């Protein structure tokens, strides 16, 4: 069984991905070897702070990275074993929406304000499936209904501004589902929403993912959201995955000093009235990433070796890995 799985390609796999941005201040090395994969029916959370490269990775996977200023300088993105970075633009367009779909953080700017939501959801069905206007609208109503928009039949002819923030995010989810993709990338889907609405949207995403047996890549900076929905987590820092683990092991025993520090820096019940254990300093400037481990200037465990060697993402016991020279010492501590 295990043997068999080893040969089966992952649903989506990113390997050694390097992306640079050419800016006025020099070349910003935004991605420096990102590796992650997601399988059907699984939720992978990509966790990281702003500038860690979560969204750039997602945009590269989708083929919507702005080039220039961005440029892919190495690595591969495979969908069911097929390399997307070398595929023709036509092939990529075919896959986009049809096989891999994406939803964005800010639904208001992701939707076109001058068309009705029904028109926008149906657009893909008309152009890609050759549906008639009427059929596409009918299907749009069904989709809106599935994502929990009340009175979908009336609302299908409304414009984006007539919806509240949470409802707009539902519209975008409906749009991403129109062509029945098997990978869904959700880039901070609830960051702009209030906590009660966030809970509704996360429930909806989890439901849809389970129902359709999709691979869901959830990009977020929220340690709470991750703990609630993810199966596996990839933690990003300065354009690399620094730790990869299933959700339970990661929270119970983080094996990278950055993950550990991140979990310690959030306020909890028992931190009340005490100093939070903040991470000192700032994330590095991506045009001038420090040599060695990019986290070493902020790390409490750093030694001289950390300034020289870039630690590889090495396997640890259990299906997990960490890019720290001292990861083995952190296991079980």
């Amino acid at each position, binding site marked *: 069984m295990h043997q068999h799985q080893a040969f089966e390609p992952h649903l989506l796999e990113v390997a050694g991905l390097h992306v640079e941005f050419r800016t006025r201040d020099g070349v910003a090395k935004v991605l420096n070897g990102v590796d992650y994969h997601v399988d059907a029916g699984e939720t992978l959370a990509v966790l990281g702070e702003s500038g860690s490269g979560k969204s750039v990775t997602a945009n590269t996977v989708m083929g919507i990275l702005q080039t220039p200023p961005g440029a892919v300088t190495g690595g591969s993105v495979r969908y069911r074993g097929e390399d997307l970075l070398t595929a023709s633009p036509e092939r990529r367009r075919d896959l986009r929406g049809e096989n891999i779909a994406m939803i964005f953080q800010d639904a208001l700017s992701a939707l076109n304000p001058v068309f009705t939501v029904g028109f926008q959801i149906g657009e893909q069905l008309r152009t890609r499936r050759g549906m008639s206007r009427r059929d596409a609208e009918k299907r749009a109503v069904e989709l809106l209904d599935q994502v929990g928009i009340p009175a979908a039949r009336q609302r299908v002819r409304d414009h984006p501004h007539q919806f509240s923030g949470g409802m707009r995010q539902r519209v975008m989810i409906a749009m991403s589902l129109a062509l029945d993709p098997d990978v869904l990338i959700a880039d901070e889907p609830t960051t702009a929403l209030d906590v009660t609405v966030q*809970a509704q949207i996360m429930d909806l995403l989890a439901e849809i993912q389970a129902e359709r047996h999709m691979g869901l890549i959830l990009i977020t*900076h929220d340690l709470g959201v991750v703990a609630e929905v993810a199966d596996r987590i990839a933690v990003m820092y300065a354009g690399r995955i620094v730790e990869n683990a299933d959700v339970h092991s990661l*929270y119970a025993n983080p094996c990278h000093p950055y993950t550990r520090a991140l979990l310690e*820096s959030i306020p909890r019940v028992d931190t009340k009235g005490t100093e*939070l254990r903040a991470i000192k300093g700032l994330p590095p400037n991506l045009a001038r990433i420090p040599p060695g481990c990019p986290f070493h200037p902020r790390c409490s465990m750093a030694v001289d070796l950390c300034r020289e060697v870039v630690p590889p993402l090495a396997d640890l016991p259990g299906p997990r890995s960490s890019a720290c020279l001292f990861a083995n010492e952190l296991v079980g501590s």
Partner: protein
Amino acid sequence: MTESILEVEDLVKHFPVQHGIVFKRTVGHVRAVDGVSFDLRRGETLGVVGESGCGKSTLAQVLMRLEPPTSGRVRFHGEDVFPKRGRALQALRRSIQIVLQDPYTSLNPRMTVGDIVGEPFEIHPEVAPKGDRRRKVQELLDVVGLNPEHINRYPHQFSGGQRQRIGIARALALRPEVIICDEPVSALDVSIQAQVMNLLGDLQREFGLSYIFIAHDLSVVRHLSDRVAVMYLGKIVEIGTEDEIYNRPSHPYTQALLSAVPVPDPRVRAARKRIRLTGDVPSPVNPPSGCRFRTRCWKATDICAEEEPALLTRAGGHHRSACHHAEEQHLLPG
């Protein structure tokens, strides 16, 4: 010991909704803050939580006297603040300062940090004589953890967390007694957020400040607050100590809000009972009759539509709650 330094009584702020270009007529009011009362004691932090549109920021604006109130009273050290004009108002402004949410837009990009932090001294020269200002500004930068040598830099040369520190230094310049923090950490990354929260805690202890801490992140508010007020559609629905609100909430809205907060611990996710609220917050132009939460409440009965529940301590409870069916719910810690 716990004297009140700020007392807010039945504060109301309505914004007119107008139609027409030349001849404007008012077609309704956005009832942003609609009868809010609380008091703030010396050296304490009062957290104000609520979802967007509940009136938390308008409350801050009115308390700062940036917006005139529609009605109601605010007393600072027992003195009414709204009738104050001229010199008396200027003295008041020294005592109540604000830290704003967005460190990118709340600092003038054409001014150096020294000018930004020193500007309050231009208006209140009695705090720092002219020759002394540069030194004062450098002291302030040092207090908030910035390098005093960076006094001539511009805001764009700082990161988000550092800019928020500049905003805090500016608020501290006049040695205020009250600082209103309007979402001071919500634009910051998790690792930076903790630094700024620690700073706010240190400054409070050092200068005996009182904070009104407005935020939508319930765990941030919990960490810093002594007491917490929960707002919904322009009203306080529940107010109590941090322990009362987080461990024994009695208003259904507070209970739902707390149950919706994701807990950063995967072990509890199966065991948690989540109260699912349906629908969105109603429009503050035309809020529901009676209790404003009744349209989304699972406990709502006829009385909720007819009679507006007052904010008071109810039978069996220990803190004030604006619900006809208030019932303390004991939540598991976590």
